[in-house]
């Protein structure tokens, strides 16, 4: 479903991604782990072109999105993104946060968009918070709204950029539970995470990145129990 070939990304002199090639299948949950600065987030952000790749190609559903002629906004409609710091719109209510893009971008009627938004908020367990502003929500609740907001666009793939890293420990569970439901419902997901438990339990495949390359990939079992590369072993020994 997503094919990535020879992806390079440079920020000036600094080369962050040094040739990433990977395929992601439909319904697959791919977890990306690795030390900070390894390029995980940049890799993820390239998939919906929040970062522009320096070279290489990315093909989503047969469409080469690294093509210059492509409509970037159309691509982004298809790839939902969840951020570490939620990035909810503080001047909009929870319901407006979720229904806004479908109304403004997909041109849905307000009634239809709000009906869907209510459904999504129910799905993430926050239907009673529809009319409050983000400032009145806890971190875990904010992130669940952010997930609902991304889902409202009916994306083909969901990208998660360390979705639980900014949360208090007791709130991590509720967000991971929503993500797990989503995975079980068959959503294609790419998750940059430090939650090894989640990667083990929900991930179909784990990519270990270091220094701008994919060092090793395999099933969670392969990576967590039988890592072949020294760098992977070293990283895992530090965090497990």
């Amino acid at each position: 479903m997503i094919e990535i070939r020879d992806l390079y990304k440079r920020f000036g002199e600094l080369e962050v991604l040094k040739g990433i090639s990977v395929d992601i299948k439909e319904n697959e949950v791919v977890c990306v782990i690795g030390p900070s600065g390894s390029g995980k987030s940049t890799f993820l952000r390239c998939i919906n072109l929040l970062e522009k790749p320096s070279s290489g190609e990315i093909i989503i559903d047969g469409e080469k999105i690294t093509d210059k002629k492509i409509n970037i906004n159309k691509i982004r409609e298809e790839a939902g993104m969840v951020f570490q710091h939620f990035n909810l719109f503080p001047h909009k209510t929870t319901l407006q946060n979720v229904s806004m893009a479908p109304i403004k971008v997909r041109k849905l009627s307000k009634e239809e968009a709000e009906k869907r938004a209510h459904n999504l908020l129910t799905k993430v367990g926050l239907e009673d918070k529809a009319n409050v502003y983000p400032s009145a929500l806890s971190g875990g609740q904010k992130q669940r709204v952010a997930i609902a907001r991304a889902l409202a666009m009916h994306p083909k793939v969901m990208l998660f950029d360390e979705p639980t890293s900014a949360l208090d420990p007791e709130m991590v569970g509720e967000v991971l539970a929503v993500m797990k439901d989503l995975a079980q419902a068959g959503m294609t997901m790419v998750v940059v995470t430090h939650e090894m438990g989640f990667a083990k339990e929900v991930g179909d495949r784990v990519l270990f990145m270091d220094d701008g390359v994919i060092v090793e990939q395999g099933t969670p079992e392969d990576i967590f129990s039988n890592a072949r590369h020294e760098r992977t072993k070293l990283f895992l020994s530090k965090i497990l």
Partner: protein
Amino acid sequence: MPFFGLILGTISGLGKLSRKKIFRYPCIVYIDFIRGTPLLVQILLFYYGISGLYSNATGNSLQIDPILAGIIVCSINSGAYIAEIVRGGIQSIDKGQMEAARSLGMNERLAMREIILPQAFRRIIPPLGNEFIALLKDSSLLAVIGVHELLKSGQLYISRTFAAFPVYIAVALMYLLMTIVISRIVAYSERRLGVSDRN
């Protein structure tokens, strides 16, 4: 005047942030010129300078309405200051807001209009209030081109009655009254709009 200044300021503030040089450079020139020269000079330049140029070029004399001239110059002047306030407001909004909007498929224009500007405006209400107060007080400079604003009216009254002190005190108090009203309005709108935005 505040209204035109706000529109002009928003447009040129956005222009200065534009990636396109054709938008950016004219805005920079406008802002730098206006902020770098005294308002008094701008008023005289616009009122006497333009009619002088016109009569030199055509031989006819041009009579600009001083009130209209005053409104135009003051709007252009405050637009330049407001442009910098607007620019600062936009840049103070977390980068993640634009990224989140873009990641939902919004184009840059839509994201700016729906997500960034509404938040930026809430944040710049206090400096905007300052600017409106300054604008009100600066309108006293329009006396030099014969606009019968507050100060000029006071001076005319003094020329008839020779009561300088009480009249100037009265003029000062009337300015004070007006600026207090403005700052109350600003404080009120800050409170009202700030409700949803406390994080």
